[in-house]
C-alpha cells in the first residue's frame, strides 16, 4: 500500500499494486525506447538528442530510460499555488485533493431557461464569479469559448476575465507561447511582479501531446516556455481509448504515461527543477456512436492509475472530477459527476478539473457546478476518516447514559455534534415543513443559490492600476495581431 492515497485517520485507496506500477512504468519505458516519438520542434529535438536520445532514419526520437530517471530525480515532488492576494491555497502533493471548473466549453446551458447557446464574454465573467463564490472550488478555468471576440484573442481575454472576476488560482489553456507570455504578463501585474510570480505561482499551464506519440510544435513551445519561467505545467494526453490509445485501460495508461514522461524529460532538460504536474485523462470511444465518453468506469480506473503512478514517481497529480457525458443536467449527469468526484477524492488526485462539464466537455452546466460544490463538501468530509481516540470512542459517555438512556442530553453530543457534515443545498426537514417552505426540489434550490450568487457575489477587486495594466496587455496583443 506504499503508493496508495492516504487521507485522515486511516482512509486509504489503492488501484495498483507495486508490481503493477513497475509493469506499467516498464511498458511506458519500452514505448519511448522501442517505438519513439515524433517531435515537431527543432529546439526540443535538439535538447533530447544532446540529452542522449536517438533519432532514427524515420525521424522518430527514441528516449532511453536513463533520461527518464534523471528527469524524475530533478522534478519537484510538490507545488504550492497562490491566490491573487499572495496567499498559499493549493498544495499539490501526496494525496491532497483540490477541485476546479473546466475550460472552453462550446455551449452554455442557461440554468434558468434551459437554452443552449454560444458563450458571451458577460456569461463567462458571470460563470467565473460563480466559481469564485463556491467555497469547495479551489481554482478557476476559462469555462466557455468566447463567441463574441476575435478567435486569436480568446485565450488572452479569458485570462483577463479570470483575473478580474476571481482571486482563485487558475489553470490556463493557451494556443501558443506568445499567448502564454501575455498571460504571464497579466498575472505578474496582478500579483506584484514577474519575480514574485515565478516563485509564488498563480496559474498552471495545460499542455498536451497529440496522441499517439506526437509532440506538436505549439505544445512543446509552451512546455519549454513554462520550464524556463517556472510556470507549473502538465503534459496531459486526453486518451481516446480505442482510437488515439490502445482500447484497454492498461494500454491507455502505458501510452499516456509514456507521453507524460516524455514531456517531463523535455521539460527537465530545459530547466531542471522547474515544477511539473503529472497526469492525463481518458474518454473511451463508444464503438457504436464513435463518441468519446466522459466519466465512464474505465476512466475512473485510469485516474486511479494516474494517482498511484504520481505517488510512485513523487510528482504532483492532475486529473478530473464532477463531469459527465450526459447532454443535460439530469440524473445521468449527477450519477456520473458524483461518482467521479467521490472516486477522485479517494484516489487523492491533487488537482481535479472539469467540474461542471456535461456532454463530454462540449457543454457547461452551472447547475451541476453548484450541486458538485456540495458533493465535494460531502467527499471532503469522508476523507477526514474516523477518529478513534478515547474521546471519540466515547466509552465515558456510554457509561454516563447507560442502557435505555438518550445521548441527546449528554455533554458529549453537545460537544461534538457540530463536527458533523452540514448541507448547503440538501434538505433534511420533515415532509410537512419541506412542503410548507414551498416544496422546492433540489433543482429549484440550486437555481436559487445561483441567482443569489450572480446578484450578490462581488469578487475582491483588482487595484485600478492593475486593471489598466491588464487592459494594456490585451490592447498591445490586439495591435500586434492587427485586430
Amino acid at each position: 500500500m506504499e503508493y496508495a492515497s492516504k487521507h485522515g485517520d486511516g482512509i486509504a485507496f489503492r488501484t495498483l499494486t507495486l508490481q503493477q506500477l513497475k509493469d506499467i512504468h516498464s511498458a511506458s519505458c519500452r514505448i519511448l525506447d522501442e517505438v519513439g516519438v515524433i517531435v515537431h520542434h527543432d529546439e526540443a529535438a535538439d535538447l533530447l538528442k544532446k540529452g542522449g536520445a536517438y533519432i532514427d532514419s524515420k525521424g522518430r526520437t527514441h528516449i532511453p530510460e536513463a533520461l527518464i530517471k534523471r528527469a524524475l530525480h530533478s522534478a519537484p515532488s510538490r507545488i504550492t499555488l497562490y491566490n491573487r492576494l499572495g496567499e498559499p491555497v493549493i498544495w499539490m502533493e501526496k494525496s491532497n485533493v483540490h477541485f476546479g471548473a473546466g475550460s472552453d466549453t462550446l455551449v452554455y446551458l442557461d440554468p434558468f431557461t434551459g437554452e443552449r447557446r454560444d458563450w458571451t464574454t458577460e456569461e463567462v465573467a458571470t460563470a467565473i464569479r460563480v466559481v469564485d463564490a463556491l467555497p469547495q472550488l479551489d481554482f478557476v478555468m476559462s469555462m466557455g469559448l468566447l463567441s463574441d471576440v476575435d478567435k486569436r484573442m480568446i485565450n488572452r481575454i479569458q485570462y483577463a476575465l479570470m483575473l478580474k472576476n476571481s482571486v482563485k488560482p487558475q489553470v490556463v489553456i493557451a494556443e501558443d507561447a506568445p499567448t502564454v507570455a501575455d498571460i504571464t504578463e497579466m498575472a505578474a501585474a496582478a500579483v506584484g511582479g514577474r519575480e514574485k510570480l515565478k516563485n509564488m505561482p498563480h496559474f498552471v499551464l495545460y499542455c498536451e501531446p497529440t496522441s499517439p506519440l506526437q509532440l506538436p510544435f505549439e505544445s512543446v513551445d509552451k512546455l519549454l516556455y513554462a520550464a524556463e519561467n517556472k510556470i507549473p505545467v502538465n503534459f496531459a494526453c486526453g486518451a481516446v481509448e480505442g482510437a488515439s490509445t490502445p482500447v484497454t485501460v492498461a494500454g491507455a495508461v502505458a501510452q499516456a504515461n509514456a507521453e507524460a514522461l516524455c514531456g517531463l524529460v523535455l521539460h527537465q532538460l530545459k530547466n531542471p527543477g522547474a515544477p511539473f504536474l503529472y497526469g492525463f485523462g481518458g474518454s473511451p470511444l463508444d464503438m457504436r456512436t464513435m463518441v468519446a465518453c466522459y466519466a465512464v468506469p474505465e476512466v475512473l480506473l485510469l485516474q486511479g492509475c494516474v494517482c498511484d503512478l504520481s505517488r510512485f514517481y513523487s510528482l504532483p497529480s492532475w486529473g478530473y472530477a464532477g463531469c459527465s457525458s450526459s447532454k443535460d443536467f439530469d440524473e445521468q449527469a449527477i450519477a456520473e459527476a458524483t461518482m467521479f468526484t467521490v472516486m477522485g477524492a479517494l484516489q487523492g488526485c491533487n488537482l481535479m478539473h472539469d467540474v461542471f462539464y456535461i456532454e463530454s466537455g462540449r457543454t457547461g452546466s452551472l447547475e451541476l457546478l453548484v450541486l458538485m460544490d456540495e458533493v465535494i463538501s460531502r467527499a471532503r468530509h469522508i476523507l477526514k476518516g474516523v477518529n478513534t481516540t478515547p474521546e471519540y470512542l466515547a466509552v465515558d459517555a456510554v457509561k454516563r447514559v447507560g442502557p435505555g438512556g438518550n445521548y441527546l442530553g449528554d455533554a458529549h453530543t453537545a460537544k461534538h455534534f457540530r463536527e458533523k457534515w452540514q448541507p448547503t443545498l440538501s434538505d433534511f426537514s420533515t415532509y410537512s415543513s419541506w412542503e410548507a417552505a414551498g416544496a422546492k426540489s433540489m433543482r429549484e434550490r440550486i437555481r436559487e443559490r445561483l441567482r443569489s450568487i450572480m446578484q450578490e457575489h462581488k469578487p475582491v477587486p483588482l487595484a485600478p492600476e492593475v486593471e489598466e495594466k491588464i487592459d494594456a496587455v490585451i490592447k498591445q496583443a490586439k495591435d500586434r495581431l492587427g485586430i
Partner: protein
Amino acid sequence: MASIKDLTEFVIQADIEKVKETTAALLAAGEDPLKIINEGLIPGINEVGERFKEGNLFVPEMMMSAQAMKAGVDLAKEKIEGADIPNAGTIVIGTVAGDLHDIGKNLVSMMLDSSGFNVVDLGVDVPADKFIAAVKEHKPSIVGLSALLTTTMPAMKEVIDALKESNLRDQVKVVIGGAPVSQAYADEIGADGYAPDAALAVELCKKIA
C-alpha cells in the same frame, strides 16, 4: 470448394484468410472477378452495415470486415483489365493546415472506405494548395476538411476560397467536421455539409456524392 455465397459469410465473419483463400480459388477456377466482387464481397459488407445500423455490431468489427472485403477485392482486381471497379464515389479528405489531429478524420476515412468510397487521405497539416492539387488529380465528388483546434478552423475557409480561385468550387461538394465545428460554421464559410460524427458523415457523403 467454397462458393461465392460463402465469401459473403466470410466477410461478415471478418475472416481475412478465408476470404483470400476462397477468392483465389474461385479466380483459379475461372470465376468472373466482377461477379466475385459484386455478388460475394460487397453483399457481405452491406450486411455488416445493416447489422451495425441495427446495433448488433460495433465499429471495430465493421473495420475488420472491411479489411477482409478489401483483401478479396485486391485479389479480384488483379484479374480485371480496363473495367471500372465499382465504388460509391471519390472523396479527398485531410486535416487542415496547422492541425495535427487525425483521429476523427481517420475514423471518417475508415468508415467511408468501409462503405465503398474511394478515399484519398491527404493526412494532417494539409495546406490549401495540396487540396487543390489533389482535386485536380483525383477529380473527387467530395472534399472533406477536418479541424480539432478553434485556431485552425479558419484554414477550412482558406481551402474553400482556394477552390473558388481555381474555379473548382462547383465541381466538388465540401464537407467539414471536427469537435469545435458546427452547422453554423459550415454555413458561415459556405461549406456544403457538416456532420457531428463519423457515422453521420458517411450518411452525408452518400446523400451528396
